[in-house]
């Protein structure tokens, strides 16, 4: 890596004077560096807050520092202590560990099941011709415009009823939340995946059919495999959406002793409780699952987001 870089510098150096470098490359670097500072300062700042044992906002940066000297607080932690990280796991009123487990379970299960079910339905829409196909597609487009948050009243009433008749599945349960997210993501995801399936040439599965492959084999072995980018993108988008979802989660799991991260985290810093240190520590840990999923999927994200999403 470094070797290739060096050769490129060597090649570039004689061709470019400093003045020319400024007009072609320098301004690009200047803008990019400014943008990077804008992008990361809230993150580096929250790291500083998390590592500060006092745990209030003002303690993260000594009040004596004002103006430009306070800018250092944004990028360089002033103290180092892991106290906040252990504290969040030892508070039974605000059980961070349970929130974390709930969020991860809900997001993983909902995203996996939704991606699989949507892909399966999309296969039918993309590869088969049947009665009701066009109205079905139209219904999917319309459903996309009715996000579940608009039906939150109805969801609340439905899940309350379910919890009375089927305890363990309605409001107040992680299972109930998963069911709702599944229902909400299927329409959009089916439409997205169908768009991508359409770009996979039908000739491929036709030749497989001639070779005697069953529809199950064509679906799992061919179409799904060729559509890996869009599957990854749909998984990522659903995971992110569910992990971040607030309105439905706080309606169905309002109790802070058993809820999700999105609902729980705000309790650290609302009302009289201003535990910014604990909040910062919890927020940094909460970012880990999303960054992990993002890191695994980002390779596909650029192609998947544009090609899959655009083709309809």
């Amino acid at each position, binding site marked *: 890596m470094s070797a290739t870089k060096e050769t490129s510098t060597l090649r570039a150096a004689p061709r470019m004077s400093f003045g020319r470098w400024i007009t072609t490359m320098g301004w690009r670097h200047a803008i990019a560096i400014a943008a*990077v500072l804008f992008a990361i300062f809230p993150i580096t700042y929250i790291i500083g807050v998390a590592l500060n044992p006092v745990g209030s906002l003002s303690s993260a940066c000594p009040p004596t520092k004002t103006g430009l000297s306070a800018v250092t607080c944004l990028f360089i932690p002033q103290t180092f202590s892991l106290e906040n990280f252990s504290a969040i796991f030892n508070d039974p009123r605000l059980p961070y560990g349970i929130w974390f487990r709930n969020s991860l379970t809900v997001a993983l299960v909902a995203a996996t099941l939704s991606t699989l079910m949507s892909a399966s339905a999309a296969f039918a829409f993309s590869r*088969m011709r049947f009665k009701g196909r066009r109205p079905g597609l139209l219904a999917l487009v319309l459903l996309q415009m009715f996000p579940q948050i608009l039906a939150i009243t109805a969801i609340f009433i439905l899940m309350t009823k379910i919890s009375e*008749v089927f305890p363990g599945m309605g409001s107040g349960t992680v299972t109930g939340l998963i069911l709702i997210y599944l229902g909400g993501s299927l329409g959009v995801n089916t439409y997205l995946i169908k768009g991508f399936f359409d770009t996979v040439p039908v000739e491929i599965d036709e030749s497989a059919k001639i070779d005697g492959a069953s529809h199950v084999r064509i679906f799992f072995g061919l179409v799904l495999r060729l559509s890996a980018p869009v599957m990854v993108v749909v998984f990522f988008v659903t995971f992110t959406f569910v992990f*971040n979802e607030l309105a439905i989660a706080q309606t169905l799991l309002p109790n802070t002793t058993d809820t999700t991260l999105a609902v729980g985290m705000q309790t650290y810093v609302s009302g009289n409780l201003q535990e910014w240190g604990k909040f910062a520590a919890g927020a940094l840990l909460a970012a880990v699952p999303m960054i992990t999923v993002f890191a695994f999927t980002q390779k596909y994200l650029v192609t998947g987001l*544009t090609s899959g999403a655009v083709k*309809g």
Partner: protein
Amino acid sequence: MPLGSLNAWIVKLVILGLIDVLGIWAVLKAYGANWWLAVGFLVVVLVLVNITYFRRGGLPLKYMLPGLIFLVAFQLYPAGYTFYASFTNLGTGHLISQEEARKSIQVQNEKPVEGSPSFDVRPIEKGGDVSMLITDPETGAALIGTNDGVTPAPDAEFTGAAATAVPDYRTLNLGQLTGDPELDAQWRALAVPWDTELGYNLRQSSPTRAELRQSDFAYDAQTDTFTDTTTGTVFSANQSVGLYTTDAFDPDSTNRQNEGQFLTPGWPVGVGLNNYTTVLTDPGVRANFLPILIWSFVFAIGTVLMQFGFGLAMALVMQDKRMRGQRFYRIALVLPYSLPIFMTALVWRGMLNRDFGIINQILGVNIDWLGDGSLAKLSVLIVNLWIGYAYMLLVVTGALTAIPQDLKEAAFVDGASAFRAFRTIVLPLLMVSVSPLLIASFSFNFNNFTLIQLLTNGGPFAGSPIQGGQTDLLITYTYRLAFGTNEQLLGFASAISMIIFIIVAAVSAYGFRLTKRLEEIKQ
């Protein structure tokens, strides 16, 4: 091959068998709870599943059915119910069915019967249902009481004169009751009809004692009326407002003015287009609604333009392949997109804090960023720019690489300036592929509940929160109407939900028509 397909067949049989067992159990549960809608849905699902997967052919349905079931139950049904609810007065005081409301009216207005003997009772439980084991003070015999009446229990065991246990049932003590809120609630709600003619019910006063109580209101099923036994006032079922009302009740007056002329709770009834006309014509509501509607548009459009503009600018800055450190820049710039919003929105709230926030400390000022209407709006937009530009950067980068290089170069050969080449060749092509995503981004941000709730909670507020705040979107305003205050206005909130749906659908339809036109230009 035959062995393989046999195995597959067995697996299929086992899975379908499990689904059937589970489904039948669920049907029975729903049936036991008299929830007919669920019974109907589950029966249809069971029949459909069995037909679909046991018959030959019908391949499309085999692939679609699993998703379809969840879609109908948890998306289509809630959407349909919202539509229905928007034409009703569903909400506080109108949440339960007329039958339940009737029971509630009787229970709420109960008082002890004078001279009632004290009954020896025990809470007993079987299969999660709580009943009352009663020792009749006159005969000394044991009875089992439920909400439907009493049945003799000849095989009960006695401790002294009081019946304390009965076979097949578990006798609950105080600890078991308080330890299980579900059982405790059942025990407290248990009203055993004792003398139906006089309207006496037996109700617990402690885990071992019960007394006779009587409702002030005598119900007449023939005329569907309540009569206040103390004053003689008659309340009849009024289906236009969903309440039991007197003849003096004036539907155009407020609840306060009608005090004493109706009984609570009521039940939901259809109110036609009232909820919609209220939004558009009621001067008080319109004064709240209009600014929120305008800000929702400003926020959604402003967000899309800012995020797209910034994302596009950064994509262009880094487009030059000779630029070094591209990997680093890209990773750092995309970082905000890979973080949870519930984290970043709250971090920004902390940084913008007037007294302790780092922003004020650096600027050396004391500005209440989130406490002033215009500043709060500006802050919300900037924070949302930070949160969302990276998504646009990814999208634009992808779309730019898809544009053939020779097209861009051709423009230069023609002698066009870099800016002109970009504006006339690259931008139109870019818009074709990203405009559907811009439309999607608009509808997402029009309903960006999470950001607003976490950053400003809709504030700052000029009056009471029910009137809406300076940064309230329609969706946060609606949520507050439905759940945020003591009075839930679910029907009214549903009507606003439907209005949001119509707005988003109309804007999307218009946007897609524009996209179509763009595509035609391209060809």
